[in-house]
């Protein structure tokens, strides 16, 4: 078992945990956290794929992808948190009601 395989497996496990939590928790902050955990899993997996090149230098492309992915994740998380705050301000709860009045 190489270290990169371990990274990849941990990445998959994190993704699973994240998605599971995303579904079972209803509090918005928890959902957002869950998404971040899942995202970290994907990033970890991506980093693990960098170890494929034969030379001593790892493949830089996955690193660049992860960096880009992290920035995107930060942006999305910020927007999500801002929305969550606003929802809390307007509705008094930080949960999404199941059946919205339509």
């Amino acid at each position, binding site marked *: 078992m190489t270290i990169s395989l371990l990274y990849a497996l941990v990445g998959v496990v994190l993704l699973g945990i994240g998605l599971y939590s995303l579904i079972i928790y209803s509090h918005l902050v928890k959902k957002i956290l869950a998404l971040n955990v899942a995202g970290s899993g994907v990033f970890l997996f991506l980093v693990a794929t960098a170890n494929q090149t034969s030379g001593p*230098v790892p493949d*830089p*492309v996955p*690193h*660049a*992808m992860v*960096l*880009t992915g992290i*920035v*995107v994740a*930060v*942006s*999305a998380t*910020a*927007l999500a*948190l*801002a*929305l969550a*705050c*606003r929802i809390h301000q307007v509705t008094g709860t930080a949960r999404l009601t199941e059946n919205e009045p339509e």
Partner: protein
Amino acid sequence: MAISGVENPVTAVLLNFRGYDTLLEIGVLLLAALGVFSAVPSPVILSKSTPSPILILLLRLLLPFIVLAGGYILWIGKYAPGGAFQAGAILAAGGILLSTAAVPFNRFATKTMSIAMGIGLLTFIVVALATMMVRGNFLQYPVAQAGTLILVIEAAATISIAIILTILFIGGNPEESPTAKDEGDKAFIIERDNTTK
């Protein structure tokens, strides 16, 4: 790596080989800030209370180092891990310290803030289009100037990233904050941190 104009392979991929991704990504960052502005009318974090003197003192001590570290990280990105995002994040830490210390932004700052937010993306696009006009392909740097152009883009991006990350932390447009208007004068100018680089 020589053809890319930088020696750090990750920076080469980010700013040159796959620079287009990074361009869009800076767009995502600006977009998130806009999203926060439009979703949240007034900042979530900024409070009206007067800043504690200890925090002010800490800031006075820390800020120069933060700026220095940011500049260094930005510059070192050419050779080793580092670059605009890392530098921007460090500077943003300074911005976050400022806002947690309840230091309001002054009027000048809020006026130029939007320019600072946009400057990174703007520089990137302008450089990309200019290189396209010169060499025929979007973001195709002239080999000799590649390093310089990348540094210019990164510097501009650092400013934007720092501001935007700070704003994302505050969670709203400081322009709309009640403190921005009446207490503007005694505050630090957040831009000064970045422009000193």
